[in-house]
């Protein structure tokens, strides 16, 4: 009991608190195979090479992190046993837990973590911000490494405990030495499950087996099999028939049917939710004009978008903030235009912008239901505001290629697109791509707003929370005034599982170490 308490207490990260909120109270039983229908097909295995959520979720089985984030968004040590910060906040020292082992049986050493962090800092937005502050990483001994900053950087632990893509997962140094532009070839982690490469069939299944030496927790399941089922009706039938145990993302239309089945349960693992975006392209007319962009803000009716795209009101909420409404930086600062639709004002702004009636190309993704609905709502609202809308229908893959084009809309480019981000990715200015004003270095749409970049730099250099909160509000005011993008609300995605599945945790990704089958 003492040992269990210590583990629970020390482990903390990600799920210790969350475990209390798990949807089941059954006694946990060791062993067994869990059959899980994942949200997408796992094709890329390298969590640094891609930002795909499916790769992040896969990596939570295979890899571990130095720090994690619990349900209350507090950073907790995970692989790290203890850490210290110098009085001036410029030097951090981290000591790893005892007994950490890679899946190949080798011990985890400080050098592995140094190399893993170096690779991650080359790709991740938060990591790049940290890298821009001149950190020097070095192993002090086999279990301890240091991070010495060249310039002040407040949220070091938040960066290392970043829960969403790209997550700073730890890998053996020989693997982490792979260029960040190349995919790693060997999948060896120290996480709760070992990836079985021979049984991996892209487009069908991924198999994981228990990592018996996982520290600091006990893993209940012997094996986890991820299945990919592109057809929701098939997954629903398989869950009802008991052929699968857990369906990660059932479409919201299916939830009522699932809830009618006494053998099944649903649960909201990520109450923070997901945020929808309407993104104007700042490079080309009419949205290279601030007034035309502000018209998009004033025409916004989040309720209309959410009704059309999500449909079931208990799973969505309006949110007049660019930062996740359930997060610590949510604010209504500067959100007057977003908070209440004012079509009259929108029409006036369109006129004042000097819009010449040229067709406005709206990317219309047809193979993702909520993006399809969002584009149709946008057409109606933009037309009502006085724009001449040209919906360009395409599949998601084509949309990805189109959005990367900086050409004018009549040469294959675009004016408006829709996308979505999990709340963890819009939590604060250091992770939020929508508030970057870095021009060519910003997210697609490329707003060039130097003031935003300065505020974000100030944010990461701030060391106290009230100052950060104040800077986040400043960021929001500028982002909404310049209309870097327009959020169209938040929604929550339930998960569905059979009642013999216990221990599902509240987190942005499905976690399996605590799951068991009764």
């Amino acid at each position, binding site marked *: 009991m003492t040992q269990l308490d210590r583990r629970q207490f020390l482990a903390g990260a990600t799920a210790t608190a969350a475990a209390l909120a798990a949807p089941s109270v059954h006694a946990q039983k060791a062993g067994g195979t869990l059959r899980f229908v994942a949200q997408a097909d796992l094709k890329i295995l390298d969590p640094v090479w891609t930002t795909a959520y499916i790769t992040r979720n896969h990596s939570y089985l295979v890899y571990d992190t130095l720090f994690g984030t619990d349900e209350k968004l507090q950073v907790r040590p995970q692989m790290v046993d203890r850490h210290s910060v110098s009085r001036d906040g410029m030097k951090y020292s981290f000591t790893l837990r005892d007994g950490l082992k890679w899946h190949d049986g080798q011990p985890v050493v400080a050098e592995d973590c140094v190399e893993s962090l170096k690779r991650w800092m080359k790709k991740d937005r938060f990591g790049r911000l940290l890298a821009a502050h001149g950190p020097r990483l070095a192993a002090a001994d086999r279990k301890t490494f240091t991070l010495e900053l060249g310039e002040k950087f407040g949220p070091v632990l938040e960066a290392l405990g970043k829960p969403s893509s790209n997550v700073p997962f730890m890998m053996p140094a020989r693997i982490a030495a792979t260029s960040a532009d190349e995919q790693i070839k060997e999948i060896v982690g120290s996480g709760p499950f070992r990836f079985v490469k021979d049984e991996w069939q892209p487009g069908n299944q991924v198999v994981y087996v228990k990592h018996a030496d996982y520290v600091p927790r006990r893993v209940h399941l012997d094996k986890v099999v991820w299945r990919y089922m592109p057809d929701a009706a098939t997954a629903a039938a398989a869950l009802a028939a008991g052929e699968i145990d857990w369906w990660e993302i059932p479409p919201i239309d299916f939830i009522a049917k699932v809830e009618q089945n006494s053998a099944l349960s649903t649960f909201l693992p990520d109450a923070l939710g997901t945020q929808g975006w309407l993104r104007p392209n700042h490079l080309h007319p009419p949205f290279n004009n601030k007034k035309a962009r502000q018209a998009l803000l004033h025409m916004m009716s989040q309720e209309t978008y959410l009704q059309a795209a999500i449909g079931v009101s208990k799973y969505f909420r309006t949110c007049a903030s660019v930062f996740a409404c359930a997060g610590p930086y949510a604010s209504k600062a500067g959100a007057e235009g977003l908070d209440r639709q004012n079509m009259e004002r929108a029409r006036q702004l369109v006129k004042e912008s000097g819009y010449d009636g040229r067709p406005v190309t709206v990317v219309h993704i047809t193979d993702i239901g909520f993006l399809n609905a969002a584009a149709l709502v946008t057409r109606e609202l933009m037309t009502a505001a006085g724009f001449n809308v040209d919906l360009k229908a395409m599949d998601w893959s084509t949309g990805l*290629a189109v959005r990367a084009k900086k050409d004018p809309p009549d040469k294959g480019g675009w004016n408006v697109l829709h996308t979505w981000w999990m709340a963890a990715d819009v939590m604060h200015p250091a992770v939020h791509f929508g508030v970057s004003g870095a021009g060519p270095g910003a997210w697609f749409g490329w707003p060039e707003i130097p003031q935003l970049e300065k505020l974000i730099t100030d944010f990461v250099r701030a060391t106290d929370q009230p100052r950060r909160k104040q800077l986040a509000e400043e960021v929001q005011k500028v982002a909404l005034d310049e209309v870097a993008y327009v959020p169209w609300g938040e929604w929550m995605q339930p998960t569905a599982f059979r009642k013999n599945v216990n221990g599902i945790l509240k987190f942005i990704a499905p976690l399996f170490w605590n799951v068991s089958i009764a």
Partner: protein
Amino acid sequence: MLAEILRRLVATIPVMVVVALAVFALLHVTPGDPAVIIAGDYATGDDIARIRTRLGLDQPFHVQVGIWLGRIVRGDLGTSIFSGLPVATLIGQRAATTIWLTLFAMLISVGIGVPAGVVAAWRRGSWIDRAVMVFAVSGFSMPTFWLGFILVYVFAITAGWLPVQGYLPMASGLWPFFSHLILPALTLSLVYMALIARMTRASMLGVLEEDYIRTAFAKGLAPRWVLIRHALKNASLPVVTIIGIGFALLIGGAVVTESVFALPGLGRLTVDAIVRRDYPVIQGVLLVVSGVYVLINLVVDVLYVVLDPRIRY
């Protein structure tokens, strides 16, 4: 005959080259860019350009074709852009499912469609004939995905006799193997069963009017003997042609069935690859499937000779 088969096999080479070039060209005029998909949300233009260079996608079209054809000649179908797995491995993982599904579906189609067509022709105008024709029209009219869900609802969810989805290899046991294929094969076969039944009936009706059939009946031969030995054999050329085409169509039609029943077959591999613009996988699968089509046509041509000695090549 053997020389003819060899000649035809050699003749498949230019056909395959044309298919390969057409597939390559088509893919390169299709919108979409795997480098953008790989690069992800945080990529800059430079990141995307670097990935395109590494994948060789920045090379001129003729250079890319040359590299790909060079690999094909060496028996290398390439590597998936996303998973990094060899295309041959991916095809190997999926081929068995599609082959078994297609064979089962064809077995059901022929096993039911041919006798139904023969009986309908023999009992022309009777209720049996009408029943077969109603069945055939229904078979043509029912969308595969709809039929699949109905069968799942009835036999898997309500009755619980068969699994909803998935595939198990024969090594898992004969019943698990068969049980996972019954519903998908039934779903896939219905339309071809209907096609074969109609074609057999039409062909048999023509043959049953022939003098030698009347003579056979006049000689007192048993109707079953006359129908199978004399009529069906002579009516079988169009049916064999349809069966040959049906094999090709079944492989194509398997895409929907594989999705409905979550079967890891070549159809889904192709669709998934198209969705992501995984060019090497699309090219590899289409090349292999094209080869299979060519071989099926060759087998059909050989069967013509076996069934009708008057045919010479």
